[in-house]
C-alpha cells in the first residue's frame, strides 16, 4: 500500500518536473516526446528539463538516505547531513580553489566541492573520535565547530575577492537548474558507493536499534557499523552537495516521513527514503519554477520555506521541557 503510494507520487514528481517551467507543456506533450513524437520546439523544451530532473532524483535520494543513516546512528531526530560540516567543507573548498588555484565554471568547481565535502567529513570524524570512543554528540559538535571556522574563512576570502564571491553566492543558494548531465556523472560513483554501503549496513543498524549490547551479542560491532554508516552518509551527502549546492531539510524531513510510513526497519527505511527524497526535492523544484514565473526560486530556498514551518509545527508536539 505504502509502496504503491510512494511509487505513484514519485512518477507524478518526475512528470511534473519535465512538464512545468517557464514554458508549461501538457502531459500529452510529454508522452508524445517520450515515445519519439511531438514537434521540434516542445521536444527541445522538455528535453532541456531532463538534466535537472536527473539531478533532483540523485540529490534527493542521496540526502534522504544520508539523513536516514545519520538519524539512525546518532539517535538524534534532528541530525542531518549538514551537521557533519559537509556544506561548509564543500563551500570552503570551492572558495579556496577559485581564489588561489584559478578554478572556474561548473565542471571544475564540482570536483573541488566533492573533495572539500569528503575531506571535511573525514576531519570531523577524526576530531569527533579523538579522545577515544565515538559519541555521536561529539561528532555533531565537531561538525558545528568546523563549520563555524570554515564559514569565517569562506566569508573572508569571498569578501576580499569579488570574482570568488560571485562563484560562491551562485553556488551556495542550492539549485538544480543551470547544471548539465556532467554534474550527474561526476558524483554518481560516490553516490553509488555510499548507497551500496548504506544498503549493506541496514541489517546491522536494525540490530543496533535494540541497543549496542544486544547488537554485540549478535556478533555485530556497533563501533564499526557506526563508522561505516557515517562514511556512507558523508559520501552520499558530499555527492549531493557537490552536484547541487547545500539544500536544507530534505535530509532532515524525509527520514521522519519514512519512519511514520514504514516503521523502524532500516532496510525499508532506506528503500522508501530513496523514493521519498527525490519526490520531495522534485516537487520543491517545480514549485520554485512556477511560483515566480518567468523567474525561478532556487530549490534550496523552497525546501527551507516548506521544511521550516513543518519543523515549527512539530516543535509544539515535543514532549516535556527537554
Amino acid at each position, binding site marked *: 500500500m505504502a509502496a504503491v503510494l510512494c511509487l505513484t507520487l514519485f512518477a507524478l514528481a518526475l512528470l511534473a518536473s519535465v512538464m512545468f517551467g517557464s514554458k508549461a507543456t501538457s502531459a500529452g506533450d510529454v508522452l508524445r516526446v517520450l515515445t519519439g513524437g511531438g514537434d521540434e520546439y516542445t521536444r527541445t523544451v522538455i528535453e532541456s528539463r531532463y538534466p535537472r530532473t536527473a539531478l533532483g532524483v540523485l540529490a534527493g535520494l542521496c540526502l534522504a538516505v544520508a539523513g536516514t543513516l545519520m538519524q539512525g546512528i546518532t539517535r538524534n531526530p*534532528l541530525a542531518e547531513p549538514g551537521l557533519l560540516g559537509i556544506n561548509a567543507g564543500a563551500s570552503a573548498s570551492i572558495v579556496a580553489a577559485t581564489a588561489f588555484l584559478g578554478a572556474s565554471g561548473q565542471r571544475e568547481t564540482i570536483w573541488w566541492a566533492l573533495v572539500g565535502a569528503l575531506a571535511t567529513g573525514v576531519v570531523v570524524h577524526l576530531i569527533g573520535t579523538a579522545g577515544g570512543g565515538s559519541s555521536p554528540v561529539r561528532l555533531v559538535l565537531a561538525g558545528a565547530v568546523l563549520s*563555524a571556522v570554515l564559514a569565517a574563512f569562506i566569508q*573572508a576570502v569571498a569578501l576580499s575577492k569579488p570574482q570568488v*564571491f*560571485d562563484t560562491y*553566492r551562485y553556488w551556495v543558494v542550492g539549485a538544480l537548474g543551470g547544471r548539465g548531465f556532467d554534474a550527474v556523472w561526476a558524483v554518481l560513483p560516490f553516490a553509488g558507493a555510499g548507497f551500496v554501503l548504506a544498503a549493506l549496513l541496514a541489517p546491522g543498524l536494525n540490530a543496533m536499534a535494540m541497543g549496542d549490547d544486544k547488537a554485540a551479542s549478535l556478533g555485530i560491532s556497533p563501533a564499526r557499523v557506526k563508522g561505516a554508516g557515517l562514511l556512507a552518509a558523508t559520501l552520499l551527502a558530499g555527492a549531493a552537495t557537490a552536484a547541487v549546492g547545500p539544500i536544507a*531539510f530534505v535530509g532532515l524531513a524525509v527520514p521522519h516521513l519514512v519512519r511514520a510510513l514504514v516503521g523502524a526497519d532500516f532496510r525499508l527505511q532506506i528503500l522508501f527514503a530513496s523514493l521519498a527524497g527525490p519526490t520531495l526535492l522534485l516537487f520543491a523544484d517545480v514549485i520554485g519554477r512556477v511560483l515566480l514565473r518567468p523567474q525561478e526560486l532556487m530549490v534550496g530556498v523552497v525546501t*527551507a520555506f516548506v521544511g521550516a514551518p513543518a519543523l515549527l509545527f512539530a*516543535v509544539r508536539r515535543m514532549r516535556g521541557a527537554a
Partner: protein
Amino acid sequence: MKTADPTDTPTGADAGTDTRAGTTARRQARPVRRIMVRIGPWVAVPVRRSSLIAAAISLLLLLGGAVATLSMGRLGIDLADLPSALMGEARGKNAFVLNRLRGPRLVVAIGTGAAFGLSGALFQSVTRNPLGSPDVIGLGAGAGAGAAAAALFLPDVMPIAVGSLLGGLIAMAVVYFSTGTGFRSPGRLVVAGIGVAAMATALTQYVVYAVERDKASALTAYINGSLSARSWEDATTIWIVLLVCVPFAALLARPLSIGEMGDDTSTGLGARPARTATAAIALSIMLSAGAVSVAGPIAFISLTAPQIAKRVTRSGGPHLVMSTLLGALLLVLADLTAQQLPLFDDLPVGLYTMAVGGGYLGYLLIREWHRPV
C-alpha cells in the same frame, strides 16, 4: 553559611556601586571571602573577592584595548597626545581620528560587546545550555534576513539597520509563538530557532544571489557584523539600550542565581522560575537586538563571554557583570585585530569573532572529551 563580621569588612569594592555593608562568608574547608554589593534596597549581590579581582583585570585590559584602538597604526593618536585629546583639545588629524574615525567605533564596540555579553549570560543562565545564546535561536539570522529584505524590497526607503532590527524581532516572535510555551522550554526554543534560522538564511542567500555584485558584497559584510564607519548616533543607540536594560538585569541577578539551583529548589525558596525565565530571555533578546541593529549580527560574543566568565571566576551563578565586561573586552580586541591586521583590509569584525569563537568552542569540546563521562 554566612556570618556578619563587622571587624572584617572589606572596603573599596567595585567603583560605581554603593557598598553599604559587607559580609564575609566562610566555608569550613576553604575560606571564600565575599563582599555584599548593594544598590539601594533592591539589589544585594554577594561577590567573591576573586571575582572582583577578575573584574578589575578585565577593566584594565579593556582600557588597554581602548587606548591601543585609538593610538595604533598609521592614523593613530600619539600616546603623548592622547590625554589632552581626550580632554577635548584634539586638533587637526587627531580631532578627525577621535571624533569621526575611531572614537565612535570604539564606543560602539564597547557598548555592543557589553550588550552581547550580558545577553548571553542571561540566556545561558536560564536555558542552562552552555551553547545557548540569542544567535542560536535565530536572532542573528533573522536580523540578516531583515537587512537583506530591506535592501532588496525597500532600497533607499528603509535603512538597513531598521530592517535588521525588525528582522531579528520578527524571528523572535515566530520562535515565541511556534513553541507553544513561549520562551519557557529551552529544548523547544533551540529547535524552533533552527527552523527560523533556516528560513532566514535561505531568504538572505536568495537576496544575495539576486542583487548585483557590489550591493551583495556590501550586504554580506553587514550580515557578518561590522563596526567600520560607525557614527555617534550608533553609539548613542546602543548605550541607551544598555542603560534601559542593565537595571532590569541587576534586578534579575538574585532570582537567576536561585534559579540555577533547579526549578524545584527555587520554587521551594519562593522564587517563580517561569516568570524569571521569561523576563530574562526577553531582556536577553532586547540586548542582542539592540546590538545587532547597531553592528550587525556579530557571532559568538554572547556565546563565549559567559563561558569565559565561568572559567575565570570558577564559581556558579549567572556571572552577569563578568560576562558584560568580557563581552566588551572581546569585541574591542577583535575589532582592534580587524583594524590593524595587515593580512586583509578591514574585514567585518564578525569574521574574526567567528573564527576565534569557533576555535575556542573546539578547544572546549576537546578538553571536555578528555574527561571521563
